[in-house]
């Protein structure tokens, strides 16, 4: 299936103006809560600097830290698996399921498993996985992807959730009360936790010196799954490694404040050994990350701790919705991670930005996101992955701009053309600029002419 480009999908999204405004305002509200939380910590900028430096150090010694982590985790009684790509990751999980003859699986939020397409893979094999994060359960019922890495169902209104729950959980039709709907999900998912034979979780941080890992949730769903089921599989991209437990202080102080404005998530669970009678597995996944590490301009994207602050602040994300990005990780950070995975399929994403730089300003680990978006554009153009129209347009523009006389002549020509045939510029088919914008009146003279006239006066 040919996916729609970001611009095409976004134009569908913004067709519903009140909903677009609601989406925009809701995410901006989350961004404002982030600001309030960040401003409450005097050493906030020092924390960002430490976090950035710890991650840079870790990336520069990553192979050794991964070896140390594996060794310690094994000594703790955990089975460690390595997966070069999504397919290997899915195969490893499937083998554990089959070997233990598991029927029922619960999964807490893991963007990595979304990236690898684990649910679809297991579904084809006849195995159903129940997503237990409320937002993820909602989108799973609707056969949709999460539209945001922290708030998976942020594209939906409570009426949509009510309708979905009415259909799948038999809740009262038309009852849109979030409290009522959440309670229904609680009852439904409690039974899933109790009967599960295996729980899959993500990993927020993995600590090299101890072989332990930390999982953060507000709902408690990762813990309900991981402690109730006889088998726990934790799936992690290899960039989740940090050197020492004391570094968790820096990251846990930043993560929830950046994500939702909370001082910390309700639960920050530190796992290192399997529970009584349990099996614990860790799957360490590459899936393009080692390649990204070799791209000097883009390797810093691997510092990401998935807080989604860049989503909530982005004027393009807020007004185009996560699904327009057609990838598991959307938003500004997704737009610099995904071209590495598939440049052709994701060539549109670095252009889904105004390059305003707000993403870089709120990033708790100081990733230069907007710079990388701009650099990806250059890579994508030089690799030939832009449309012919854009290529010709940009070439024509460069030609005109590099010749002052031609530039002055063209300006004059367009100005008179605009006043003679204004309707040509107000035809959406002919003028893509006009599709979502008003055309200004053509000025009578250029700035150069105006300046020459007024300088003398």
């Amino acid at each position, binding site marked *: 299936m040919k996916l729609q480009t970001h611009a095409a999908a976004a134009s569908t999204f913004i067709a519903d103006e009140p909903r677009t405004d609601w989406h925009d305002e809701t995410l901006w509200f989350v961004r404002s809560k982030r600001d309030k939380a960040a401003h409450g910590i*005097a050493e906030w900028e020092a924390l960002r600097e430490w976090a950035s430096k710890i991650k840079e150090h870790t990336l520069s010694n990553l192979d050794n830290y991964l070896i140390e982590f594996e060794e310690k985790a094994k000594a703790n009684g955990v089975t460690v698996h*390595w997966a070069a790509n999504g397919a290997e990751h899915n195969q490893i999980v499937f083998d554990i399921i089959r070997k233990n003859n598991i029927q029922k699986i619960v999964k807490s939020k893991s963007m990595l498993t979304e990236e690898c397409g684990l649910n679809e893979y297991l579904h084809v094999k006849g195995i159903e996985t129940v997503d237990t994060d409320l937002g993820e359960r909602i989108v799973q019922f609707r056969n949709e992807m999460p539209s945001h890495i922290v708030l998976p169902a942020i594209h939906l209104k409570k009426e949509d959730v009510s309708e979905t729950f009415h259909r799948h959980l038999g809740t009262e039709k038309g009852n849109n009360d979030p409290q009522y709907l959440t*309670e229904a999900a609680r009852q439904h998912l409690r039974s899933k936790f109790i009967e599960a034979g295996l729980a899959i979780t993500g990993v927020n941080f993995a600590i090299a010196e101890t072989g332990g890992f930390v999982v953060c949730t507000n709902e*408690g769903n990762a813990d309900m799954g991981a402690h*109730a089921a006889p088998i726990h599989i934790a799936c992690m991209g290899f960039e989740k490694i940090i050197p020492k437990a004391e570094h968790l202080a820096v990251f846990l102080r930043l993560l929830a404040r950046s994500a939702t404005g909370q*001082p910390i998530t*309700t639960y920050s669970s530190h796992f290192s050994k*399997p529970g009584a009678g349990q099996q614990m597995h860790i799957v360490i996944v*590459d899936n393009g990350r080692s390649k990204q590490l070799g791209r000097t301009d883009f390797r810093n994207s691997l510092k990401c701790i998935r807080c989604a602050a860049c989503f909530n602040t982005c004027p393009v994300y807020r007004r185009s919705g996560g699904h327009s990005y057609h990838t598991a990780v959307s938003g500004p950070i997704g737009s610099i991670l995904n071209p590495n995975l598939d440049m052709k399929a994701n060539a549109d994403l670095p252009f889904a930005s105004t390059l305003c730089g707000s993403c870089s300003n709120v990033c708790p680990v100081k990733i230069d996101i907007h710079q990388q978006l701009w650099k990806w554009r250059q890579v994508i153009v030089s690799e030939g992955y832009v449309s012919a129209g854009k290529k010709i347009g940009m070439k024509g523009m460069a030609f005109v701009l590099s010749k002052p006389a031609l530039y002055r002549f063209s300006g004059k020509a367009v100005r008179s053309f605009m006043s003679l045939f204004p309707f040509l510029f107000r035809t959406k088919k002919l003028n893509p600029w006009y599709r979502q914008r008003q055309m200004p009146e053509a000025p009578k003279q250029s700035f150069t002419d105006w300046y020459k006239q007024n300088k003398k006066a």
Partner: protein
Amino acid sequence: MNARAQILNTISANKPALADLPAISLQQVTNYDDVFAKFKATLESIGGQVLELDDINELQLLINEEKNAGHYVLTAINGVNDELNNAQDAITLEPVHKAFIKASIGVAENGAVWIKESQMINRLLPFICQHLVVVLEKEKIVSTMHHAYQQLDVFEEGFGVFIAGPSKTADIEQSLVIGAHGARSMTVYILN
């Protein structure tokens, strides 16, 4: 070549030159004058309840009260309890109305308490109970997470958790709902 070798070799070839690990200076970190007041204010702002207790024996009265009311209560306060062990499964623990657990440290900046495996006895207990009651000694409250990690060995046991308030979600239209999957309430009794 297997995945492990392939991944490690590629990382080794592609990683940048060694960068220094920053020193984290506690001099640069906030110290609250009144850590108890900050802890209480923070935890209450995120849906928790903070009460003071002068004598640990008062707790037994509270537990008895709950039991007399016919509620299924489990307590891990003294470390040993005939009714509670680490082999109990989710079906057994699902009906728990209230659980009493001791915490090692409280963190003023975020209202979190640290509970290690030996304090909860069963890993599921603090999550599966309907209501969570935590007991914390007043002098165990520290200013920030840096101070907490400095005092704790968080991986000394197989599991441990920072808990800050009741289970919650805002996944439906950003409306805050208390009681997602875990405890519907969290009360911290501060022992003077």
